[in-house]
């Protein structure tokens, strides 16, 4: 199957793939700063350099760690907790 072959090709060249992703990310931030018209921005912070990149990354980190913190306050528990699994 070609799809499997494509995935395995990408896995074999993972190092290059990761480098390519970093380049894309950099281009995205720089491109947003240099070329994107901010006319549609609704608030002042949105005009800052790389605002949405930082927002996305921080949002991800906050969601992961706040959720895990919450989960470890007794919310996450054993699978047979209710005794019916």
């Amino acid at each position, binding site marked *: *199957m070609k*799809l*499997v072959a494509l*995935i395995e090709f990408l896995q074999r060249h993972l190092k290059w793939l990761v480098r390519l*992703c970093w380049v*894309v*990310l950099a281009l*995205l*931030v720089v*491109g*947003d700063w240099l*070329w*994107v*018209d*901010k*006319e*549609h*921005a*609704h*608030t002042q912070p*949105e005009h800052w350099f*790389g605002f*949405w*990149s*930082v*927002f*996305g*990354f921080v*949002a*991800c*980190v*906050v*969601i*992961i*760690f*706040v*959720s*895990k913190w*919450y*989960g470890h306050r*007794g*919310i*996450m*528990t*054993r*699978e047979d*907790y*209710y005794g*019916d*699994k």
Partner: protein
Amino acid sequence: MAISELWLHPAVILLVGAVLLPLLRGRARSVALVAIPVLAFLRVLYLDPGTHGCVRFLDWDLVFGRVDKLSQVFGYIMTLMCILGSIYSLHVKNAAEQAVAWCYVAGSLGVIYAGDYLVLFLFWELMAFSSVFLIWQRRRPSSIAAGIRYLLVHVFGGVVLLGGIMLHLKATGSLAFGQLDVAHPDMATWMILIGFILNAAVPPLHAWLPDAYSEATVTGSVFLCAFTTKTAVYALCRAFAGMEVLIVLGVVMAIYGVVYAVLENDSRKLLAYHIISQVGYMVAGVGLGTQMAINGACAHAFAHILYKGLLFMGTGSVLQMTGQSKFTELGGLYKKMPWAFLFTLVGGLSISAFPLFSGFVSKSMIVAAGFEEHRTTAAFLLMLASAGTFLHTGLKVPYFIWFGKNNCSAETWQRAEDPPWNMRLAMALTAGLCIWIGCYTPYLYQLLPYAVEYHPYTAYHVSETLQILLFTAVGFFLFIKPLQPTATISLDVDWFYRMGGRAVQWFVNKPAQAVDTWVGELYRVCGLTWLMASARVSAWFDGRVIDGVVDGFARSVRGAGDRLRHLQTRQIQVNTFSAVVVLVVLLLVYLLTSM
């Protein structure tokens, strides 16, 4: 009852189909499984705008067919999803499962075209009572229990809704289902709202959703994920547009679902939590209440039904083929189920609102409406939740099922392969629609209730979205270790009624039983002893005193009688002589004393 016109309700087609389906076998059933939903879809397409199906019942004018732009967009997507879900379930041998699924869709259509609250309530309950069979059909003990909880919660919601409807009728004298006075809500309005938001899974009335949907059958969850919550969104759009509390509730939903998705180990339960998150956007849109926001809520419901259906199809096909849905029992399946991976990825990219996928053109309308209404905090929090959506549904689900550590047992790995052709076809069609909506915006925008002035494909919006999503991916791969699934469950507010039920059971079995035993013992020790003692005294009194008196009297009577009998035994001459002697003696005594 008086019927003013004959009007074919699209729900009737599905209800008749549901009755006929179990009678059909083999190819005829397969043809019917596709043809009946297609007929219902065509009926929706050719409905004339206006009010139809009016029935005079007692003092009320019931309206079964209110056809306008708002009802049409929901009627369209519901019947379309019914076609896709039915194709997905073509391989299912149990016709009862497909029949109840159609009854469930018919309930949804009934609500959508209802012009009054009584008809709405009728179909609202049809949805609850038919959909529960999609959970019970899985036949696991945990599914049976989850179905009962699902039904109890929905019966509670239905009762509150009916109470609200009755109060509304008493206050206004009208049953018409339309916009309520959300600026000055009275008790009736609040009760109707509670009935609606329970079905929309708004916290804290949401826990039935992940509890039940993760326990449903593979095809059942594909239907379940589409209809209940989005029908509730339709009802909210119709009656509660502009109710401010819904903005807060919507944002809470969007974030709540994301938080629980981090903790979840079961892929289908994770998706169920993400329904709450995504419906949060729609509820917030209803709360904003502007034309753009209502358009956004409708558009997002439309897109959501398709991509969430697709995601449940993808993870459902994994469950179907491997028997597993937990991340801790899956992994590395790309070699075995590549097509299921590809279609699930399309669903993941759509829900994450990637450019060129459906969520991008719908979700952003709501967020943009939030910014335009200067609800900046709400809009930013919705953006934060969208990062969480990509984190889990776009990355966590595909990664931990098809890549990551291979946790499959030998049996799971052996069983794993792409699902049957009908499931692949349904996924391919749904994935195609997700991409089509994302690429060709007029298709969806023309169906919306209000004219659309919104253009999602601006350079700023594309750049903004790509930055959020791709940097979320950076966070995912950097912090993949804390995201590793663990074999746990997460407690939610269903804890209160699950453990509350047990508390009642414990109370009945322990303290109430103990009190009952103690009272029994007390009665036995004190009551019975006293009773026995008093009985003995009574017996003694009865035996000695009462019987003594009675027996004594009887003995006296008997003695007198005996003597009399003995007297009577002598000869009559002797007796007469004795009597004469006594009389002569008495006479002599009298004469001697009177002289």
